């Protein structure tokens, strides 16, 4: 029986061979995608593990790891020569520089990975990329931050990526013991749980990748389903004939299974081949600021088995549902029964979701962050599920209206077919909805955040350097030394300096301080001298004639979530500090520059060498360069997902169209025979496939953007910014590719319905 | 069954004794119903009286079976006319048509022509019956249907016979 099944599968004729090939290809795409995702996740994990040692902290963390901690010092239990340790991060031209300061406590000191000995005071090890930069950049711009001479480079086994900028600086134990946040350690972190200050997002990134892979999996499964429906009727008839000829159910099942297995096995093999071919190309795709090395990309045995077995299993499940309507009894189907139309109730979840999100906008967010999360997740969930559920009903209604009112045969044919079987038509693009919706939400939110919060080039914010001091009432930097201020002023290109101090609790303020970003809870404001503020316009302006002003807490304390464009246009209320500004702890130093790279680097170097541990420098609003870059790359990944899902949907539609044309071959060829031109049928194909594709792609993108607008409004008080040119190009390219694939079925349409071919059977 | 014309046809082939005529008739045409001797001689006598056949010289041993009969020119003409005519679609069509086909084959002629002529006549009759159906009462319709189905059955048989002509010709002329 198995051999018979094999023969039937491979020699079944062109139609059955086509079906086999398409099914195998669909499976292979799913397998390759899954493998690539798993390899990337593994690669990120490996990368992460290399840098895990940088996540070692000597004490319980208090607040943001970027700023060096103010927690209590912990004396390490006596072990094999512990070392003093503190990790901080800096910014250089938008790249993250990780600085590790170490001091030995005696002989046999613990040595960090990647270096031969612990550097002594006045010595440092630099990563190869940083070493090159130090050699090629003027010291005023970079080198002055690190006192000492280079005694070696850090080995690549200790660096997540060869392009990382890491430096291990040697200090005296006495120096480090005075620094808040430094402590002794006896061993290094090795797990990749939250490795390194730069990879705080890695786990998040892995999760996001997994989610995106799942999201892309939908279109692939739909594609597999469509490929199974190809010639399904023929296949059922053939199996029924074999059954009639006396084969038992078991034998027929064996035959059917053989065919499915052949396609699955071929698909898995091809999928592995595709993965091996595509994996080297992944090194060109940047993730979280650095690209993966091909050596990192790998799949374990378990991953391979999951892909090899999981995708065919998913395909089998899909197959059961995909073929439900193509049931042919052993005696054949003589009459066609119109399937049940979708009910109007399907629209309810979608409406409910939109209403709920809109309610949040108008009535404000729920108070607790837990309530927020619940509310938003529920809203998004409802909208997403709502889109998928409401789709067939919407398709049906739209198609009915089209069909009832048109005088054109092509529109009539397409409209009736869509309204007759909206589920079938919708099936092919349903995978697209989720993919485009999710990615549009992310593109919308990310674009807005980047535009508003990022220091877009050319704006005032991009020319203003800020040095952010750790937040907290125990801020121990009482004043900026005048030497630092004069060094800053002497840099060519510096236009102004403002120091923001932590406002005392009893500060009198005229009116309320606008909060640009209310994260909830009470935060302190900052207070500035208006004479200084006027020199750094990126931070806003004072009222005319005021001496002091109170700055919003988000300016002073939380750079990443600030909307810097709003800051520049805000006029801060006048403040009346009773004792002037002396004695108040420093919160932020802002330096306005002419925007040139060398000036910015010089300013950052002066600030970094003055306050290496207590604060972090960056461009205004871009404190977390890593996070911005991460967001930007997430956006690119989202756009790539849109592209891929559009192309896959195009494949599904093309395959579904081919199947649909085959089914209706006789009435169409007789129609052409009676004088209908081929163009009528071609236009019908366009309306039936390209129409829904465009409507759904645009519709779910718009819904996604509306949802992200609602989210931004209520969560951040901002409105949606349009996405950049890349988005339009990528989406346009994807749509074009999908349409091209559909267009490729048109010659098939001509051949299948040629009038000369309408012979009596 | 038109016995006289059949006997004429057999005599057209060659003059024969009554006994031979009966034997040939039985073997080709009278499968289930052999022709009684009496009928043979009675028919021959009538044909002779009408001038279509002539008895030859009596041979030794008296009795009608000892006479050899031959066809006359009038008889030949009458036979040809009969052979070329389509048959009224009466109940015994197939036997008459059958004998015409066999006779034509025996005489080395193309039976296809006769079949076509018959087909045309049948179709003409069917056309008339169809007109009757379209205009007539229900009884007329029922009767016409009956006639049409029979005519159709005849045509089917004619088609089959046409397909079998080659082997039939071989059997008959051996």
């Amino acid at each position, binding site marked *: 029986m198995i051999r018979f099944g094999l023969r039937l599968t491979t020699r079944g004729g062109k139609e059955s061979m086509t079906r086999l090939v398409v099914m195998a290809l669909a499976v292979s795409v799913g397998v390759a995608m899954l493998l690539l995702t798993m390899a990337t996740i593994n690669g990120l994990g490996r990368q992460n593990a290399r840098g895990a040692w940088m996540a070692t902290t000597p004490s319980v963390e208090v607040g943001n790891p970027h700023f060096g901690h103010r927690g209590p010092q912990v004396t390490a239990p006596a072990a094999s020569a512990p070392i003093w340790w503190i990790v901080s991060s800096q910014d250089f031209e938008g790249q993250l520089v990780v600085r590790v300061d170490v001091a030995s406590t005696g002989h046999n000191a613990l040595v960090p990975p990647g270096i031969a000995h612990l550097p002594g005071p006045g010595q440092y090890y630099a990563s190869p990329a940083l070493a090159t930069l130090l050699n090629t950049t003027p010291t005023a711009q970079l080198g002055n931050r690190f006192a000492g001479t280079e005694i070696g480079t850090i080995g690549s086994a200790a660096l997540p990526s060869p392009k990382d900028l890491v430096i291990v600086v040697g200090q005296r134990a006495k120096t480090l013991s005075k620094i808040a946040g430094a402590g002794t350690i006896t061993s290094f972190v090795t797990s990749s749980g939250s490795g390194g200050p730069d990879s705080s997002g890695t786990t998040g990134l892995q999760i996001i990748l997994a989610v995106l892979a799942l999201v892309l999996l939908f279109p692939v499964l739909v594609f597999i389903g469509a490929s199974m429906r190809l010639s399904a009727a023929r296949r059922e008839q053939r199996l029924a004939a074999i059954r009639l000829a006396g084969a038992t159910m078991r034998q027929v099942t064996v035959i059917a299974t053989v065919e499915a297995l052949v396609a699955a096995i071929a698909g898995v093999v091809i999928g592995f081949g595709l993965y091996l071919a595509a994996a080297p190309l992944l090194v060109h795709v940047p993730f979280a600021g650095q690209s993966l090395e091909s050596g990192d990309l790998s799949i374990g045995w378990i991953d391979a088995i999951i892909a090899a077995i999981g995708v065919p299993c998913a395909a089998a499940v899909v197959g059961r549902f995909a073929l439900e309507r193509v049931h042919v009894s052993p005696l054949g189907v003589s*009459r066609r029964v119109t399937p049940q139309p979708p009910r109007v109730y399907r629209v309810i979840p979608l409406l409910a979701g939109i209403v709920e999100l809109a309610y949040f906008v108008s009535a404000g967010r729920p108070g607790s962050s837990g309530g927020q999360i619940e509310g938003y997740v529920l809203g998004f969930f409802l909208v997403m599920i709502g889109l998928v559920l409401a789709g067939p009903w919407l398709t049906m209604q739209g198609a009915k209206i089209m069909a009832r009112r048109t*005088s054109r045969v092509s529109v009539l044919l397409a409209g009736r077919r869509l309204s007759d079987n909206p589920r079938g038509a919708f099936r092919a693009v349903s995978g697209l909805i989720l993919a485009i919706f999710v990615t549009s939400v992310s593109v919308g939110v990310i674009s807005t955040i980047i535009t508003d919060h990022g220091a877009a080039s050319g704006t005032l914010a991009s020319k203003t350097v800020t040095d952010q001091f750790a937040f907290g009432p125990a801020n121990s930097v009482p004043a900026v030394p005048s030497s630092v201020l004069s060094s800053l002023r002497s840099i060519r290109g510096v236009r102004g300096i403002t120091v923001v101090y932590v406002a005392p609790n009893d500060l009198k303020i005229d009116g309320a301080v606008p909060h640009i970003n209310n994260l909830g809870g009470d935060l302190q404001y900052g207070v500035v001298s208006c004479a200084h503020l006027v020199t750094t316009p990126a931070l806003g302006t004072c009222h005319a004639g005021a001496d002091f002003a109170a700055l919003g807490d988000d300016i002073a304390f939380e750079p990443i979530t600030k909307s810097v464009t709003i800051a520049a246009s805000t006029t801060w209320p006048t403040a009346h500090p009773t004792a002037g500004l002396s004695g108040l702890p420093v919160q932020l130093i802002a330096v306005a520059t002419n925007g040139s790279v060398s000036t910015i680097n010089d300013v950052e170097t002066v600030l970094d060498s003055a306050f290496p541990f207590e604060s972090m420098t960056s461009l205004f609003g871009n404190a977390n360069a890593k996070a911005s870059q991460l967001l930007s790359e997430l956006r690119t990944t989202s756009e790539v997902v849109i592209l891929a899902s559009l192309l896959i949907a195009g494949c599904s539609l093309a395959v579904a169209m081919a199947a649909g044309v085959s089914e209706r071959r006789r*009435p*169409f060829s*007789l129609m052409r025979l009676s*004088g*209908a031109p081929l163009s009528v049928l071609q236009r019908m194909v366009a309306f039936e496939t390209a129409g829904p594709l465009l409507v759904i792609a645009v519709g779910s993108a718009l819904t996604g953007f509306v949802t992200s607008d609602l989210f931004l409004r209520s969560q951040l008080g901002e409105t949606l910014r349009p996405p950049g040119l890349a988005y339009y190009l990528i989406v346009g390219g994807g749509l074009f590719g999908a349409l091209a694939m559909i267009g490729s079925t048109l010659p098939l349409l001509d051949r299948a319905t040629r009038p000369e071919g309408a012979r*009596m059977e | 069954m038109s016995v006289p014309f059949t006997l004429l046809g057999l005599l057209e082939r060659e003059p024969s004794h009554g006994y031979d005529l009966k034997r040939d008739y039985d073997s080709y045409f009278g499968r289930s119903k052999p022709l009684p001797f009496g009928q043979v001689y009675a028919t021959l006598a009538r044909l002779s009286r009408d001038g279509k056949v002539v008895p030859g010289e009596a041979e030794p041993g008296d009795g009608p079976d000892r006479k050899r009969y031959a066809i006359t020119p009038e008889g030949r003409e009458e036979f040809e006319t009969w052979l070329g005519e389509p048959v009224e679609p009466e109940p015994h069509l197939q036997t008459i048509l059958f004998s015409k086909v066999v006779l034509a084959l025996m005489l080395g002629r193309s039976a296809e022509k006769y079949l076509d002529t018959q087909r045309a006549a049948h*179709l003409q009759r069917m056309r008339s019956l169809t007109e009757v159906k379209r205009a007539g009462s229900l009884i007329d319709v029922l009767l016409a249907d009956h006639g049409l189905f029979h005519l*159709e059955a005849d045509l089917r048989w004619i088609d089959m016979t046409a397909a079998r002509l080659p082997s039939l010709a071989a059997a008959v002329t051996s």
Partner: protein
Amino acid sequence: MSVELVASDVRPTATLIQAIDVAYDFGETPALRGANVSIREGEILAVMGPSGSGKSTLLHCLAGILVPKRGEIRLSGQRIDTMSEDERSTLRRDTFGFVFQFGQLVPELTAEENVALPLLLSGMRRNDAIVHAREWFERLGIGGLERRRSGELSGGQAQRVALARGLVARPKILFADEPTGSLDSFTGEVVMELLVTAARDDGTTVVLVTHEPRVAAYADREVVVRDGLVTSLNDHATST
């Protein structure tokens, strides 16, 4: 035996369409070897012959679906075998009507939409086309089925809808290829009755391909396609 003269035999009518020495082959297989047939305006001609005899091919050549390899097809004196595919397609749409054995109705359209198709293809507005289409439903005894989906009709109902579609645009010639081939005797007869009545009422010429004598009996005369040639049964020579 005398032949009755029927009134229509006396009235002279013009030749509407004719095939002259038409030959067509499918690769190695010759279907027509030099077929000649002339059809007069208003007549109903039955084209008979066993299956595979080429009668459908003759119909396709006459209707401008196939271009003969040799010979001519003339409609009212004009050659149509030399026209381009687009011109012949337009001709079929505007001048001819078609009824096939099965499978010509688009299942997801309603019956009235199916009937209206030829009119819509010619550019008529939807509402007008549907009105014209509806007139045929009563006429053919299928009133009440206008809004039914074509895929849900019985065989006889479907063929009547197909007939309506073939006639709705008032064609000059109706080409019917085994129109009752899938129907039982009674239903087939009903359909043939309607076809002939409608054609006679409107003066439509009909070319009816069939292998069934009882169907051919509805025609005015018959020709037989045999061995790639067209013969008339009466005088047994290739004739027009």
